[in-house]
């Protein structure tokens, strides 16, 4: 049990842009353990795992499996050595079925043709073996996120994985799905599989991991037994200081209504009534938090008010001016800023530079030019100023956003959205996939604009986040508001849970207080 199954020794990786992502990192895992790999965004965890999976080649260092030195030049080599990876962004083909995805590249054949019946049978068998609940014939495009992840895991297992790397597996899951996943991971452990678990969430790691390796700035800060560590000591090693969990803020002094939503309904692509007759208002100087399990209409609701989605019923106004179904540009002009939950699609243009991203919503404004002519001087000073103010870690504002870590990418989005001094800030999952330090920074900024008189609408699946930041709180369930708390201090986590799971619903007159 205590034999090292896999050893990575003195791994050094320098990216072409000169960033040293891994600096002589030692890492080892034992057979049948769940090993946590923790660190802030940009600490080098993903790089280390990509090297293990053959997607990157290290400049220096060796990898041993069962004492034998091996070379991993491609994912194919990794798979051959029994290493499987479940990526954070799923590597699935949406139009193919679940079974086709699981057996992609190794479909069972009869007479040279794919034996679909046999493939579905095998998929059912392996799902049963590991107690996975999947539909082999469903199209991947149609199944929920949780099931997609199971398909990814099964794909790795079918490939013969003994060591399974999970890159932030719970980031996209509901609390229930997370519970299910943990249960399954414990089953794997019993069956002799080894799991490397990358995560930011201290609680989760504490719950299921046996050992932990902590990384910081490309270096390993050591490997520890889980029982010897508490949350405080882990976070100290990760960020080099104690994470202050609660954001300091004064009592809110709400003023007049800024954002008003009247009787909003919409149907999403799956033909579901995603949003059902929602009434809501957000006032100056308050943060209204929306709690809820993901997929209960929050995404569609935000898409409607931010102008991404236009085929809805109901009215939306900002400072008394109706903005429903206007162009995104006009809505933004009316004073709306939006931090999207989907950073890669709506937040940043990944291939463009930091400064291009920062000015992308200010084209034609005097802030960056003279009429239609851009001024490089103004752009340079604005970019430098924002990079500075929002602590974006980069070598220059001309660097492409793709070179930044998740947390720094999000800071670029935040910097752009805050620079407008909006009347209403919509922050949708602002800390998703963002490290502790950046999260804290973003939270401070949200409180700061609230104090400066902006209205803030915060949507988050992270219960801690909404409870800590919000002045008042609403709960979404099934596309409806099922609870509203004028003062978020008057509700406990437990109580919120009941509303989030649809077990309880407040009477109409209380909810109407929101609209």
């Amino acid at each position, binding site marked *: 049990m205590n034999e090292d199954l896999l050893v990575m020794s003195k791994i050094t990786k320098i990216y072409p842009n000169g960033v040293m992502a891994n600096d002589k990192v030692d890492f080892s895992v034992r057979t049948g353990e769940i090993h946590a790999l923790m660190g802030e965004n940009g600490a080098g965890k993903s790089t280390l795992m990509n090297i293990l999976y053959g997607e990157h080649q290290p400049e220096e260092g060796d990898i041993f499996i069962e004492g034998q030195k091996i070379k991993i030049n*491609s*994912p*194919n080599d990794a*798979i051959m050595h029994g290493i499987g*990876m479940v*990526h954070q962004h799923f*590597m*699935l*083909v*949406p*139009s*193919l079925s679940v079974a*086709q*995805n699981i057996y*992609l*590249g*190794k*479909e069972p*054949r009869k007479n*040279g*043709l*794919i034996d*679909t019946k046999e493939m579905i049978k095998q998929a059912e068998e392996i799902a049963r073996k590991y107690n996975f609940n999947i539909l082999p014939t469903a199209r991947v495009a149609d199944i929920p996120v949780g099931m997609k992840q199971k398909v990814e895991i099964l*794909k790795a297992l079918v*490939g013969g994985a003994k060591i399974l790397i999970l890159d932030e597996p719970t980031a996209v899951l509901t609390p229930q799905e997370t519970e299910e996943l943990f249960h399954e991971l414990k089953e794997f452990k019993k069956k002799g599989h080894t799991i490397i678990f990358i995560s930011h969430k201290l609680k989760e790691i504490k719950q299921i991991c046996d050992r932990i390796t902590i990384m910081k700035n490309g270096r390993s800060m050591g490997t520890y037994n889980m029982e010897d560590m508490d949350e405080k000591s882990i976070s100290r090693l990760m960020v080099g200081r104690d994470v202050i969990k609660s954001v300091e803020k004064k009592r809110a002094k709400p003023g007049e209504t800024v954002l008003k939503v009247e009787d909003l*309904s*919409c*149907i999403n692509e799956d*033909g579901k*009534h995603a949003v*059902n007759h929602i009434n809501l208002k957000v006032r100056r100087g308050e943060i209204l938090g929306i709690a809820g399990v993901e997929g209960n209409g929050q995404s569609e609701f935000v898409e409607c008010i931010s102008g991404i989605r236009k*085929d809805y*019923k109901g009215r939306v106004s900002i400072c008394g001016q109706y903005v429903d179904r206007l162009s995104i540009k006009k809505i933004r002009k009316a004073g709306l800023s939006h931090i999207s939950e989907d950073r890669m699609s709506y937040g940043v243009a990944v291939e463009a530079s930091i400064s291009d991203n920062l000015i992308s919503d200010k084209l034609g404004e005097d802030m960056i030019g003279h009429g239609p002519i851009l001024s490089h001087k103004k752009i340079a000073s604005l970019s430098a100023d924002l990079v500075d103010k929002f602590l974006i870690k980069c070598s220059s504002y001309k660097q492409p956003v793709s070179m930044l870590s998740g947390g720094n990418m999000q800071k670029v989005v935040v910097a752009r959205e805050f620079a407008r001094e909006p009347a209403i800030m919509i922050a949708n999952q602002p800390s998703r996939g963002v490290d502790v330090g950046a999260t804290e920074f973003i939270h401070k900024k949200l409180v700061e604009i609230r104090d400066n008189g902006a209205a803030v609408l915060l949507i988050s699946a992270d219960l801690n986040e909404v409870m800590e930041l919000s002045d008042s709180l609403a709960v979404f369930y099934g596309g409806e508001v099922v609870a509203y708390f004028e003062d978020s201090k008057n509700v406990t986590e437990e109580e919120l849970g009941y509303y989030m799971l649809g077990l309880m619903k407040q009477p109409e007159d209380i909810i109407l207080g929101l609209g």
Partner: protein
Amino acid sequence: MQQLFGIIFTTSFAYSILRVSTPLILAGMAAVVSERAGVANIAIEGMMLISALTGVVISAATQNCFVGVLAGVAGGMVVSLILAYFILQLKANNIMCGLAVNAIAKGGTVFVLYLLTGSKGASTALNSLTVPKVDIPLLKDIPVLGEIFSGQSILTYTAILLVAVMHVFIFRTRTGIRISAVGENEKAVGSVGVSVIKTRYTALIISGFFSGLAGVFLSMSYMSGFTANMTSGRGFIALAANSMGQNTPWGTLLAALVFGAADSAANYLQVLAVPAQFIQMIPYATTILGITLYSVFKVRKEKKIKMKMLGMQQ
């Protein structure tokens, strides 16, 4: 008007639809396989042209029709291999490479034709062969159907057969599934250890095979000989047929028949007192109209369903 119907509702018109559609069907398959692999192949047009000339020249030189066809197809595959090398290995932009192939093909074929025959227009000086037409036993004796379906070129029957083969290839073989998967999410394919580049190479070479066959049909069956720029945009119509056919072999076949019908109508209607230019416009206008209508109906239908659901809820 009566004259019009007299022309359209004849078996010979139906027969000609099949004949005119054949190059579109074949080129359509070339579009299906490359589009599925996620490489928009606009070089189909140029590859067809090169194959058309190669087939004519080799069949004239060897006096063997089969060798001519093979040489033409091989020509298409070689060009697509070169194209694939530039796009996949050297990471050049596929549209720019496609444009280059088309430009080289357009000028190059005329250049070679001039070198060999002294003519810049047609290969009449070469004694090239044509692919034989065959009567299908039994079928040829059935009235109407026999007149339409029997007596077509061997390549026409081959084309329809190949559509069926493509259907099985794409949906039932490992390579076929990989090609589709690469087009949709190349990382997914790479992550299970399948080579993305190899898969795309395969797709482009198959695309070259079909382009070659389409080109050979034009110069060795549709017409007997090569004429300058004889593809006249069929490679692009094939791309349109593929997109209307939603990247499926049978769907593309159907769309190719629709375009073929328009093309064939244009040929037939030239006897009417309508300006020839107007008639020649019909296939292209049909293409644009077809694609527009298809999209409009699709969007409307989706919107209608949504609004209906919202209404019901009130």
